[in-house]
C-alpha cells in the first residue's frame, strides 16, 4: 500500500488533487515554511514561496510515482524552489541593493538589524543562519527536521559522504564563531 493510500487518498482521481494538496498542507506546511525560511531568512518571502511550492506540487502531482515518500518528494520540490529563488535575478538584485545600503548612513543598517532580531531571537539560530547555504541546509535538515543523512541525500541529490563532511565543517565553523563571541 502506498503512502497516499494509507492516508485515504486516491492519487488517480483529479477531483482529489485539491484534497491531496489540502492534506499535504495540513500535514507539512509548517515544516516547509520553516525549511524555506532557513534558505531565504525572511518571513514574508518564506510564506510567499511556500504558497508557490504547494501550487507547484499540485501541478506536478501526477508525476509523483510513489517511488519515494511523499514527504521526500515535497521537500525536494521545496528546496529546488528555494534555490531557484536564491539564484533568481529578483533576489540577486534585491541583495545587491542591500549591499548598497551598507555604504549609506546608519539608519538603514538599524532597520536591517531590527528585522533580523525580530526573525531570529536567539544566537544559536542566528549563528546557523549566518552559515553559507550549503552548510545551513544540511544542519537544518538534520537537526531541525531530524532527517537521516541518507534521506537528505535523496532530497538534495548530494552524496552522503559529502553531507557528512559538510556537517563536520558546519560544527567547526559554529564552534569557532561561538568562541569568538564569548
Amino acid at each position, binding site marked *: 500500500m502506498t503512502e497516499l493510500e494509507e492516508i485515504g487518498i486516491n492519487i*488517480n*482521481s*483529479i477531483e482529489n*488533487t*485539491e484534497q491531496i*494538496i*489540502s492534506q499535504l*498542507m495540513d500535514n507539512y*506546511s*509548517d515544516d*516547509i*515554511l*520553516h525549511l524555506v*525560511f532557513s534558505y531565504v531568512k525572511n*518571513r514574508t518571502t518564506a*510564506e510567499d514561496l*511556500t*504558497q508557490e511550492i*504547494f*501550487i507547484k506540487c*499540485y*501541478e*506536478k502531482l*501526477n*508525476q509523483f*510515482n510513489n517511488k519515494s515518500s511523499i514527504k521526500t518528494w515535497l521537500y525536494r520540490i521545496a528546496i529546488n524552489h528555494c534555490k531557484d529563488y536564491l539564484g533568481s535575478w529578483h533576489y540577486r538584485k534585491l541583495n545587491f541593493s542591500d549591499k548598497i545600503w551598507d555604504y549609506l548612513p546608519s539608519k538603514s543598517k538599524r532597520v536591517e538589524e531590527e528585522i533580523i532580531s525580530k*526573525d*531570529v*531571537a*536567539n544566537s*544559536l*539560530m542566528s549563528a*546557523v543562519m549566518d552559515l553559507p547555504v550549503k552548510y545551513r541546509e544540511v*544542519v537544518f535538515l*538534520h*537537526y*531541525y527536521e*531530524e532527517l537521516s543523512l541518507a534521506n537528505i541525500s535523496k532530497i538534495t541529490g548530494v552524496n552522503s559522504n559529502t553531507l557528512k563532511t559538510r556537517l563536520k565543517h*558546519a*560544527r567547526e565553523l*559554529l*564552534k569557532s564563531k*561561538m568562541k569568538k563571541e564569548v
Partner: protein
Amino acid sequence: MNDPFYNLKDSIKKDFEGFSFSEERKNAVKETIRKKQSHLELHYWKEETLRNILDSLHDEAKHGYEISTQLFQKNELSFKNNEGQLYTLLHLLENKKILSSKWIEDKKYYSLTAKGKKFVATFERRGSKQHGSLKNLMEEASL
C-alpha cells in the same frame, strides 16, 4: 557539549513559535488551484489537440516526451513552452478512462484503453460529418 547543534531543534522551535502557514495562505493556494482546475475540463482543450493526442497513441503506448515530439512534428503547438500542460491533459484523459498509464522504469507510458479504442473507432466512423462532436463523445465515453 561537543556538538554545538545539540540544542538546535528546541532553540529554533522557540524562534518559530507562532510562525505557521496561515489558513489565509492555505486558502490562497486552494483558490489558485481551483482556477487552474478549469484546465481539467475537456471543453478547455481544442478539438484538434485532443485528436492529435489520440492519433499519436493509436498504434502503441508512448511516454510523454514521445507524444510531445510527435505533436510537435504534426505542428501541434499547444504545448510549446508549456509542456506541463500536456501531462495535465494526459492525466485528464486517464481519468476519463480513455487512456491508461503504466510506469516502465522511470517513464510513464500512456496507451488507449479498450474503451478509448472503441471511442476512437466510433469517432472515425462518424468522421468529419459531425465535426465538433469529439468532446461530447468523450464525455459520453467517460460516463
